[in-house]
């Protein structure tokens, strides 16, 4: 009797233990997989956000020179030949440590409570560090001596401004 009793107890204990171990393994593995997946995705989000912020921080664009051209003359006063006059030329220089992409340039002239704002979407102005680019656009200044605020927006959302006054 003693032998039979020991065998029954042993079987149920083994089964129970196996069930518990299985349950623990499944739960543990699920937990580990979930947490690992969650942390990995958080790492990706954190890394992407940090990288974007760092790159945005390191973006440094200089609006180096702005000049207008009315056409004619030698050397050619406008950056592009064949542009409709009058025009404005804006030279941008990347003085930061990361490459950047200019996506938008806005010209904003405010005169006697009248705001004349023109926004130009830009494509393919990609500047590596140290590189410069001159953007030319047909543009009539509102009036002499009325300042024009030039706002340049990059692909990462950085905004750089400068102000010029036509003579």
């Amino acid at each position, binding site marked *: 009797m003693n032998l039979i009793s020991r065998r029954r107890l042993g079987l149920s204990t083994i089964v129970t233990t196996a069930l518990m*171990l299985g349950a*623990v393994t499944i739960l543990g593995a699920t937990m580990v997989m979930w*947490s690992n997946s969650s942390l990995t995705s958080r*790492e990706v989000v*954190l890394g992407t956000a*940090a990288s974007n*912020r760092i790159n945005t921080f390191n973006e440094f664009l200089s609006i180096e*020179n702005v000049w207008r051209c009315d056409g*004619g003359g*030698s050397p050619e006063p406008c950056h592009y030949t064949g542009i409709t006059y009058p025009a404005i030329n804006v030279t941008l220089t990347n003085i930061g440590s990361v490459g950047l992409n200019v996506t938008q340039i806005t010209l904003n002239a405010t005169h006697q409570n009248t705001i004349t704002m023109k926004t130009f979407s830009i494509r393919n102005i990609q500047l590596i560090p140290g590189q410069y680019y001159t953007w030319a656009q047909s543009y009539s200044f509102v009036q002499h001596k009325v300042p024009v605020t030039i706002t340049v927006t990059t692909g990462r959302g950085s905004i750089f401004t400068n102000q010029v006054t036509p003579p």
Partner: protein
Amino acid sequence: MRNRRGLSSVVGMVFAIIAIVTSVSYVTYSLSTLDQYNQSTLARNQQSIDAGKEGFQLYSMQIPANGKFNITIANTGSLPINITRMWVQNTTTGVTDWTNFYTINKMVGPGSLLTNIGQCSFCTGAKTTQTYNIKLVTGRGNALQFSVGSANVIPLFVQSEVFPTTLRSKYNVTLIYMVTNNVTSNNALVNLAPTATCVPHPGTAGISLGTLYGPFPSQIPSLAPGETATFKWITKITNSTPSNDTQYSVRCTAQLNALNAAFDTVWMAP
């Protein structure tokens, strides 16, 4: 039973270790990312501080006979400066307004001078009779903007003085002409070469004028904003008619051009 408990403990321990390692690696990654972020912020701040420490001034400006700008700047800041480009805009009235730029890429240390800016092989087209707006740009994005002008188109503060002012019979007369660059737009004047004439008034009766020697110096290549240039002429005036009294005089006029003329008078004494 002891063995079975040990097995479950080992399994639990394995999961615990996995969880701890995962957490530690996540925290380490987060701290590393934060450190990179901080380093980036510090680097960006340093870049801004360096840009603010840059300082340079126009030292001299000339347009020599080779038709090129010859600019010298002084680095007055505490950091080396890289002059990357020079922008030139022709602002002469009546001349088509053009803008051009030249790549410079020259370094200058603190307290040093950078000379011969604008003397590159393709930097041509500078004329002493025209006015220009020049902008020097540094690698950190700062700029020094100034004008280079012919005195022919800008009214200046000019004075003339003669010595002595009263003449009895025969005397050497000295004419002094002073030009002050009082242009407010940081405008350097180039190639100042004035002329002078002396004319008896109301007539030549008994008054003879010798040769007018001068000016000394014959030319001043550059006059920076706020500076004054002095030119001198010497002549001999003879009053052979003692009856000439104070109604007779000699008017000496010096000028860079009609816009910048000044005169003074030598009075005849009875």
